[in-house]
């Protein structure tokens, strides 16, 4: 990202509060920039392995869709496109507020940063609430995975496989959203306490990158599960 870290930085932030204490460079790094570079590479590697994690699920989806095309087409109509669509918009907005939060940290705007992060957290919570309602409907209608599938009126029996994959994919994604919320909470508190500034914002950026990936995965998930027919 930006090289603000080493430009001559102000001693106070936009409200006149003193900046976070001199960023502690861990003993095994040469300087702050060195530490920052290492942290960034670490986060990107972590994201790479997250992608590999989800890729297995996407593979399973593609394979079973090819095998049971008609069943999948029939089953996917029972997903609520409206709720899914709203959730997509919610997540995209959360990515926006997250990015603005990171920017705020980089430019010493503590209050704005906290506000943006809180909004991100709220968007994430909204996502989960909508998800809860979606799941609730499915449970109610017996649209459940595998052995537990009890819904009536399906021409093709392999709808249970579709819902198996649906629940595992959205469930695992949901777990990542919850973890993301915990991380956002953590950096919100730290930002509130004034720990981040143009001299030190690596954790905010790291959580931001993670959050963008969570969003990105949903952006692939939504059309594949809900839309294509």
């Amino acid at each position, binding site marked *: 990202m930006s090289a603000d870290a080493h430009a001559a930085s102000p001693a106070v932030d936009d409200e006149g509060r003193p900046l976070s204490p001199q960023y502690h460079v861990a003993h*095994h790094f040469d300087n702050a920039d060195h530490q920052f570079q*290492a942290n960034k*590479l670490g986060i990107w590697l972590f994201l790479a392995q997250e992608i*590999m*994690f989800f*890729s*297995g699920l996407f593979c399973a989806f593609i*394979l079973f869709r090819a*095998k049971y095309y008609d069943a999948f087409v029939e089953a996917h109509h029972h997903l609520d496109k409206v709720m899914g669509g709203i959730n997509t918009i919610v997540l995209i907005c959360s990515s926006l507020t997250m990015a603005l939060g990171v920017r705020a940290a980089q430019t010493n705007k503590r209050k704005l940063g906290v506000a943006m992060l809180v909004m991100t957290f709220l968007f994430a919570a909204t996502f989960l609430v909508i998800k809860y309602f979606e799941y609730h409907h499915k449970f109610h209608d017996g649209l459940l995975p*595998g052995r537990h599938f009890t819904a009536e009126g399906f021409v093709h029996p392999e709808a249970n496989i579709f819902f198996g994959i649906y629940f595992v994919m959205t469930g695992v994604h949901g777990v990542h959203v919850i973890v993301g919320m915990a991380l956002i909470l953590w950096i919100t508190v730290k930002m509130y306490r004034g720990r981040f500034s143009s001299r030190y914002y690596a954790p905010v950026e790291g959580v931001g990158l993670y959050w963008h990936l969570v969003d990105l995965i949903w952006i692939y998930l939504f059309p594949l599960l809900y839309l294509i027919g």
Partner: protein
Amino acid sequence: MSQTVAAEGHPKDDEVEGGKTLNYWNAKKGILSWLLTVDHKRIGIMYLFSVLTAFLAGGIFALLLRLKLLTGHDNLVTAPQYNKLFTLHGAMMVFLFIIPAIPGSIANFMLPIMLGAKDVAFPKLNLMSLYVYWTGALMALVAIVFGQIDTGWTFYTPYSASGSGPVILMTLAVFILGFSSILTGLNFIVTIHKMRAPGMTWYRLPLFLWATYATSLVQVLATPVLAITLLLLALESGFSVGIFDPKLGGDPVLFQHFFWFYSHPAVYIMILPGMGIMSELIAVHARRKLFGYKAVAFSSIGIALIGFLVWGHHMFISGQSEIATTVFSFLTFLVAIPSGIKVFNWVATLWGGSIAFTTPMLYALSFLFLFTIGGLTGVYLGMLNVDIHLTDTYFVVAHFHYVMMGGTVMAFVGGLHHWWPKMTGRMYNERLGAIGCALVFIGFNMTFFTQFILGSRGMPRRYYNYLDQFQPLHAFSTYGSWVIGLGFFLTLGYLLHSLKYGAKAPRNPWGGKSLEWLTESPPITENFHDTPVVTSGPYDFMGDEHGITPALQHHPKDDPSHTPAYDPGHHDPAAKTEEKS
């Protein structure tokens, strides 16, 4: 080698406390100082202790298995008990020993030092990796003691998904262990990219680090696929999600694809670090520049990448299509080539060297012998029609023990001896070292070469009872296992003995050229007093192109009688030197 002062100079020059020199062992005292350490060396030692414990347990299971197999009739244990034993032997050896062993212990210890760094990029993450490993190991132990799984370490569905609680616990244990592997790999990649000392270019890295880098790539990219596979298996087991259950429309063979997509790259996680150690052992104990440095370096990367493409060779008869089977066979032959190139380069490094018969060198030579057999028998298994006869027989068991044990374990033990003086500050007994190596080598061939014969004759794997005609070979194989056991127990014994009674080790007992031999034995917590500046390669035994040797002269504080009186400055005018190292 000129030196500069590091960014934060802490001149802890051989601090003396009550007459004793401070090093990473005694710098801080008390159990909490170990459990809450961020020193990669202490973490490496704790890993070492853990993986050796796992090796001991897995080894005892193996001895029990072989004991039962003295005859093909019922004896010693029941069939269900036997099935649990081989499952545990496999699961413990794969997940608790061989995957974490070299990266967690030797690489953790040596990587930063070889780079000229003070620590890995993320020391706290390193400690977390260790704790995650312990958590997974503990869960696995609980699954073992209370759950008694018997699916084989490969957990094939539908057998493994038939709703048994212990399977869920075991799969979750392995899931957690996987994270330890991922985080270690991530840490190492960042460390190698970002923490190299000034002058340490990529082509001046010791080859152990190239191998570690390749291994880390596989750890980071392949292990998550295992994670999702195990998660799906646990969900299948617990909630009958149906993905692998044919009755619910699922596909049991899909599990095999998912499983082997990780587990084949996993075998490269197992062997690559061993190959990295091989380069170190041969170059240093033959005191000769490594032949074909770049070829060896890039072959590690090549093996890591091609290794992702061959998983289907575990599944030729699984019911997958003939086209897939053919493609996988072809790609499998390709992955053999980089391994072969390494072996040729190592042999070429022996040419023109000055070979000492130290214990590390003996283990390296054993590796060459045993890994060659292991690799060649892999070629047998890559051939389509031959594999149909050999797969799922003892031939496969022999093949993978030759590469994993004859390969990785030999390299691991050799590396342990090679760096033992550095890590512990003590020398072990060379005579006992040679005897231990000989016992293991002989016992190993007795045990496992016999199993090639059993397999080609038609003896299937995972059999509690077997046809009478196989009894003599099985008995011989069991006797071999006792010789191996003896060899390893002897080795453990003299190594432990050396901790207290071994001669004090000098900085550079072998005359190595990589950065770790600059430090004290054992090193101080900070590794280096001042950040080294690198001006030559790691195997420049006869000097760089200007005939100047790096000043790895013996430190005045070392006992000169122990350090080989290395004679710098002599340069053979007849030998051709390259422009670049």
